[in-house]
């Protein structure tokens, strides 16, 4: 495993390409989610029912992490998992199918959008705030005991960093020098509660000192800085030097979940201008790496891939209600 510390032009374009792919996916889910919920929004109606937490604005985090991971590495995500799943290489068709509740989905429609499990790439998520962190320790433990240099990345929101599980997981990972990278996505909000009303310190990076591990905060949702910070943390973990904590100041571009009117949100007006994709597009354009045609091409490729996944999902069979009790236990799984 070579460790790279400078981004080539191709790497930079790859970061943007990943961000565009993620946004394209989230926009497609947004469209599909709302397509059949009117008149009068009904959360349980339509082809994609249930709570829907989209990650538009948080693409830089996913792209910056994903660039460092291989197929053998693990990732655990939260209730807002799509961007991370895509960047980690989760099968997009199966993921879309799961979101549409189909038998071809990652969890045969049993899990849903907050419960995506792709064992091929060691991807999991959890709908319980911060409780996705501890299992990542176990994946890292298994990798460590097997003598590999594989790592686990555990992602949580800034709201989650005030849960007990966060503290326990960081202490144990630090104590056993587990190859885990903890990434906190600080998008300023835990539903309607601003960071200032949930967290007693301005940066979670300082909490790393409570475990004797390195802590970094990346400002401005800057994808290249995220890439660099994660790169160093992954290097450390692979080298057996133990866990790191990285907090990224990112952006929740949309509501907490779809249907959230965000009446509480004073920062909403300014948000569109803070969108990281046009920002990074401009950055690469100014640097002469990207032109308009290439960017259009990125979007088109992303659309093709995403629409293929959506089409696959929509054309897949629904699970048979008669099979609702299958998969509680492994015996039940043998059909």
């Amino acid at each position, binding site marked *: 495993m070579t460790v790279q510390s400078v981004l080539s032009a191709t790497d930079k374009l790859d970061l943007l390409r990943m961000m565009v792919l993620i946004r394209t996916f989230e926009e497609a889910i947004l469209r599909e989610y709302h397509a059949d919920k009117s008149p*009068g*929004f*009904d*959360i*349980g*109606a339509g082809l994609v*029912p*249930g*709570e829907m937490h989209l990650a538009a604005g948080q693409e830089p985090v996913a792209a910056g992490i994903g660039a460092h991971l291989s197929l053998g590495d693990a990732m655990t995500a939260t209730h807002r998992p799509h961007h991370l799943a895509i960047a980690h290489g989760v099968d997009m068709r199966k993921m879309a199918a*799961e979101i549409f*509740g*189909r038998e071809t989905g990652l*969890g045969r*429609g*049993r*899990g*849903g*959008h*907050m*419960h995506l499990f792709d064992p091929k790439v060691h991807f999991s998520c*959890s*709908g*319980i*705030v*911060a*409780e996705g962190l501890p299992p990542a320790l176990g994946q890292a433990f298994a990798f460590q005991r097997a003598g590999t240099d594989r790592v686990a990345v555990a992602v949580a929101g800034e*709201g*989650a960093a*005030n*849960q*007990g*599980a966060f503290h326990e997981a960081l202490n144990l990972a630090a104590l056993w020098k587990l190859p885990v990278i903890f990434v906190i996505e600080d998008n300023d909000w*835990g*539903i*309607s*509660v601003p960071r200032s*009303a*949930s*967290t007693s310190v301005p940066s979670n990076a300082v909490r790393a000192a409570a475990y004797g591990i390195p802590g970094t905060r990346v400002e401005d949702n800057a994808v290249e800085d995220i890439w660099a910070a994660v790169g160093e943390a992954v290097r450390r973990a692979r080298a057996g030097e133990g866990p790191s904590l990285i907090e990224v100041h990112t952006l929740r571009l949309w509501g907490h979940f779809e*249907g959230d009117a965000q*009446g*509480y949100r004073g920062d909403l007006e300014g948000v569109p201008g803070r969108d990281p994709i046009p920002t990074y597009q401009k950055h690469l354009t100014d640097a002469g790496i990207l032109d308009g045609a290439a960017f259009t091409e990125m979007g088109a490729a992303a659309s093709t891939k995403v629409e293929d996944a959506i089409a696959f999902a929509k054309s897949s069979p*629904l*699970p048979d*209600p*008669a*099979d*609702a*009790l299958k998969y*509680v236990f492994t015996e039940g799984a043998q059909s």
Partner: protein
Amino acid sequence: MSTAPTTQIQLPLEPEAGRRKLSTAKAITEAITQQMHIDEKVFVMGEDVGPYGGIFSSTTGLLDEFGPERVIDTPISETAFIGLGIGAAVEGMRPVVELMFVDFFGVCMDQIYNHMAKIHYESGGNVRVPMVLMSAAGGGYSDGAQHSQCLWGTFAHLPGMKVVVPSNPYDAKGLMTAAIRSDDPVIYLFHKGIMGLGWMKKNPRSIGAVPTDAYEVPIGKARVAREGTDVSIVTLSLSVHHSLDVAEKLASEGIDVEVIDLRSVVPLDREAIVASVGKTGRLVVVDEDYQSFGLSGEVIATVAEALPGGLKHVSRVAVPDVPIPYASGLEYAVLPTPARIEAAVRKAVAG
């Protein structure tokens, strides 16, 4: 610490409903509002209870009325803020704490069952914990295995806390009033499907007549929601409405169904259950919680103990010990739907 019973004005029990209609969510906030006006020791705390007004609208408007000193948004730290509620209650305050979804009990259960519920006993009655822990329960809108559970059986199994579960606005207000005024810890579980939310499929009875003044629905008393002679459905929460719908439908075929709305799980109104089944001889328990080792078994056991030889039929319609599936078709295959209830009743009267 709170050692002496507080003197409280006696409120009417279950007055006439009157004509004014409220949603269940509004009935809950009205009860909280009235108690907050009467008693400055009452405060509300939880995630998104402030400007958001509660994810399921259980606290809408309270912040405007009482300000951030008494309606308090918390970090996502259930153990800390439920524990804070306990300590405040021990010192004589009367916290109403919201756990956003009952499914999250696993991150804070020690405070709930080892502390909130046991301190009164461990102290030999010297310390009281007059606290309400309210939480949203139930599925039916594809929220998956970690956001769709009922779990009242889990709390009911563990001693020291009362557990109430309203099915309609009238009971929701009266039970909340009784819960806040109770000197015991009370778990108050509202099903999302009866709140009358604009953004979720709701039972038409989610909006109903509610008296304007404060009143109590007594904790531990079931209600005969419909009288009948052929078979007793014992149920609670949203399932009451499905059961009533089925009863209406079958009435036209001459099947006369009695529906008991438990309203409280702890204390369980065993008398009301036994009286009903003693009359009909047939029992169908309808419960959206997991089937085994919970409420439905307890109701059946209660009847079997009281009437060992006198039962013509016993069955239950509950979630069959499976995590709640995401896909709608799967979820509705495991929920206690009207179709499943109807089939059970038909079987009961046939057998």
